[in-house]
């Protein structure tokens, strides 16, 4: 058996699935094992199937696979839902004494582990701890030292008092002992090695929030929406420590306009939302660009269109962030490809926004937002964070940006397209800004020459940024391979692991993961060099593939997934293998 273990707990929403899963994931992470979690959840609070899945290994894990080794099933449906992923030798822990679970049938090739979760929990002090009993049982099954669980139980229940923590430890041990005694002859074949590493465990939304704080974000306004709400919840309270504030607005129209107001007042400001919310914000995209206000607008994508599937994955809003809004809007679109990149790209997003005074779309997706992953803390080395505020002028240097009448020119058409910013309160800097076309002073105009000059000025910022910044991609595999796979956003992990599966099949690929959608790296050479290019993305039409085809004037192949679930590594490898053989047939 490999050291790579896939574990899950599933039941009804409201059964404490999430927090139980989290306790286990944290215990693994504390024990120096890498963890990658994923969630199956429905758009309801109580009832409805939900599961928390943990993949763990001593090596870094960055994706999910179609395999479940140990499953804690709190309901019969949990077993049905996961049947595809269960295999010969999979262990299913369930409470056979529960009336709803009495007739559960475990397929012969699997191991059903009947543990009286509720009864043991009651013995330890309360039925509510049944899930923790199951965790204890899982420790025994997987040979994972149960002491590691204690720390995360303390973290979870610490503020409820020492007694509660002790009861939970006891509950876990009862589960462990039960398996030890009743299944003493069984060896489940797992050996969960631990290491001295101390990892941190966090998800993409939290990484975005942390990136915002590191980057000096002081104002966040948003309106709750899955799966972006975690960004707001993370920042709430924490941002206050640095003199900032989170404001829950009445809707997304308000959220983006408040953030814009704060940005004009000089704060680094951000808003985050998902599908329907980004639609509502669209009108203001243009205002942000036209008024040359720095703003980070985060879209954590979910399945659309309309309210679609709010708790499911999709990368369907790319066109929206690239093209959304009437008229022509200079903008940047940055799409982190891993959870830790969510942190770094957020920092970058704030820098681009302020240096170029234009909206920066930070595009993430549900798969990344809810996935918790382990990292060595150095991966978030705060000393590496640099803050660049661009051309901000004060009383001292304001003069060099005034006209012959001594008026400050906030929209001066500088050669690089970047004008000076004077924060309100700066002496002699008072000026007008508007979404209407305006002159260098910021005043409305319909003068054709000035119009043209200001349009060119704003577009020039993008050109300047193209030159000045590094819009590079990340690359894996064999640079000389015939097959080039390109993806963006959260597909990177699945693809990296998928390459291992492909390798086993003797298939060699070059893989490019693109975190910058606009401006983006020029892939012409890479595509020309390859015999076949396959673009992988979680949407039906291939929005990024379209963009690339447009760039290189060449057809690319597509691997798309749009059922609401992220790519799994093995499944993706298979799809790529198929795309390669199809290309061979047509060639």
């Amino acid at each position: 058996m490999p050291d790579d273990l896939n574990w899950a707990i599933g039941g009804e929403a409201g059964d404490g699935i999430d927090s139980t899963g989290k306790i286990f994931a944290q215990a693994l992470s504390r024990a120096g094992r890498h963890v990658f979690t994923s969630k199956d959840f429905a758009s309801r609070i109580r009832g409805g199937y939900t599961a928390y899945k943990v993949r763990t290994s001593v090596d870094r894990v960055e994706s999910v696979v179609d395999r479940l080794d140990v499953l804690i099933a709190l309901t019969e449906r949990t077993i049905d839902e996961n049947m595809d992923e269960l295999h010969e030798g999979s262990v299913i822990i369930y409470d056979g004494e529960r009336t709803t679970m009495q007739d559960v049938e475990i397929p012969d090739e699997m191991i059903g582990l009947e543990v009286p979760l509720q009864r043991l929990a009651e013995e330890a002090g309360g039925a509510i701890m049944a899930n923790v009993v199951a965790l204890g049982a899982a420790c025994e099954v997987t040979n994972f030292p149960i002491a590691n669980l204690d720390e995360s139980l303390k973290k979870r229940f610490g503020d409820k008092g020492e007694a509660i923590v002790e009861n939970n430890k006891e509950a876990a041990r009862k589960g462990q002992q039960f398996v030890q005694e009743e299944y003493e002859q069984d060896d489940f074949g797992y050996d969960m090695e631990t290491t001295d590493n101390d990892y941190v465990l966090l998800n993409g939304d939290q990484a975005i929030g942390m990136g915002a704080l590191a980057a000096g974000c002081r104002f966040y306004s948003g309106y709750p929406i899955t799966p972006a709400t975690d960004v707001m919840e993370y920042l709430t309270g924490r941002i206050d420590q640095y003199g900032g504030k989170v404001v829950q607005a009445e809707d997304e129209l308000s959220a983006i306009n408040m953030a814009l107001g704060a940005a004009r007042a000089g704060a680094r400001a951000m808003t985050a939302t998902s599908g329907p919310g980004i639609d509502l914000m669209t009108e203001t995209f243009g205002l942000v660009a036209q008024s040359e206000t720095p703003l980070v607008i985060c879209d954590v994508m979910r399945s659309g269109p309309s309210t679609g599937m709010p708790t499911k994955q999709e990368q369907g809003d790319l066109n929206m962030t690239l093209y959304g809004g009437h008229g022509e809007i200079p903008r940047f679109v940055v799409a982190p490809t891993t959870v830790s990149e969510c942190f770094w790209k957020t920092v970058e997003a704030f820098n681009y926004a302020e240096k170029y005074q234009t909206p920066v779309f930070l595009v993430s997706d549900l798969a990344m937002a809810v996935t918790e992953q382990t990292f060595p803390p150095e991966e978030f080395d705060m000393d590496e964070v640099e803050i660049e505020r661009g051309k901000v002028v004060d009383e001292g240097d304001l003069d060099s940006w005034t006209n012959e009448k001594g008026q400050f020119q906030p929209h001066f058409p500088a050669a690089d397209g970047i004008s000076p910013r004077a924060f309100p309160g700066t002496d002699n800097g008072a000026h007008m800004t508007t979404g209407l076309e305006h002159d260098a002073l910021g005043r409305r105009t319909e003068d054709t020459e000035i119009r043209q000059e200001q349009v060119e000025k704003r577009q020039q910022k993008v050109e300047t940024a193209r030159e000045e910044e590094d819009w590079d991609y990340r690359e894996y595999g064999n640079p000389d391979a015939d097959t080039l796979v390109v993806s963006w956003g959260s597909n990177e992990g699945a693809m990296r692991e998928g390459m291992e599966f492909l390798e086993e099949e003797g298939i060699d690929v070059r893989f490019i993961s693109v975190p910058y959608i606009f401006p983006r790296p020029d892939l012409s050479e890479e595509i020309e060099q390859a015999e076949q290019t396959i673009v992988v993305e979680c949407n039906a039409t291939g929005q990024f593939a379209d963009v690339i085809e447009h760039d290189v004037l060449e057809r690319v192949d597509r691997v798309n997934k749009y059922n609401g679930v992220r790519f799994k590594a093995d499944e993706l490898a298979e799809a790529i293998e198929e795309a390669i053989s199809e290309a061979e047939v047509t060639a």
Partner: protein
Amino acid sequence: MSSDVRFTDFKSDKQPTWCPGCGDFGTMNGMMKALAETGNSPDDTFVVAGIGCSGKIGTYMHSYALHGVHGRALPVGIGVKMANPNLEVMVAGGDGDGYSIGAGHFIHAVRRNVDMTYVVMDNRIYGLTKGQASPTSREDFETSTTPEGPQQPPVNPKALALAAGGTFIAQSFSSNSQRHAELVQEAIEHDGFGFVNVYSPCVTFNDVDTYDYFRDTIVDLDEEDHDPTDREQAKDKILEGDKEYQGVLYRDDNSVPFEQREGIEESMADIPDGAPEDAMDLVREFY
């Protein structure tokens, strides 16, 4: 803040393109007077304007200013004030801007009670789009899009504000310039959201709610022995359908502005050039 600021310092050198006689001239002058009177300077003032003839005000005034998209001026103003509570923030717009497309924001800005001033230039018509019914138009007021009149009662913005927990609700008439300026000044001085609905006649598209009409009907609350701190009295005055009042309808002297409740005292503009000193603690939280 300097004491030698005059109201003309708040004037930009751009000539207004409002129709001659438009009520917005008087409204703006009163705002500038009030700003100067309260000791503000253009460099510590931020004016946010809506979209409409009224919204052009930001261009004709001199201060830090933003002229945004239709109906969203209030959220912008809230963002500005929260990010820098030292600024004097004034939001201005029309009745269409504030009570139609921006009605949701209006209610929520009132209840949020950020310390700023909101001046609505109420001409009971859409001016900039050339004469359609607005939310304050009379039920039978015939316009290009409502040939029989809107057939729905006008909104009562002061009642909305009172119901939403407003802490300062006033009504003025742009033509009574001194009184109007005083009321805006009181709104500025109020600790919280100061709301002033200004009758600001449109001489081009509204031949019903004219200067003559307001002059003939308006009653000053000072002559009515009105106690603005008495909410019941305020409610009665506000709901009296057939009277046009000027003056402070309601004022809550115990109002505490939102940003103060939230503990915001400093400008958020200053940040270090790297991550905060203790930023690694943010990472360690995830152990």
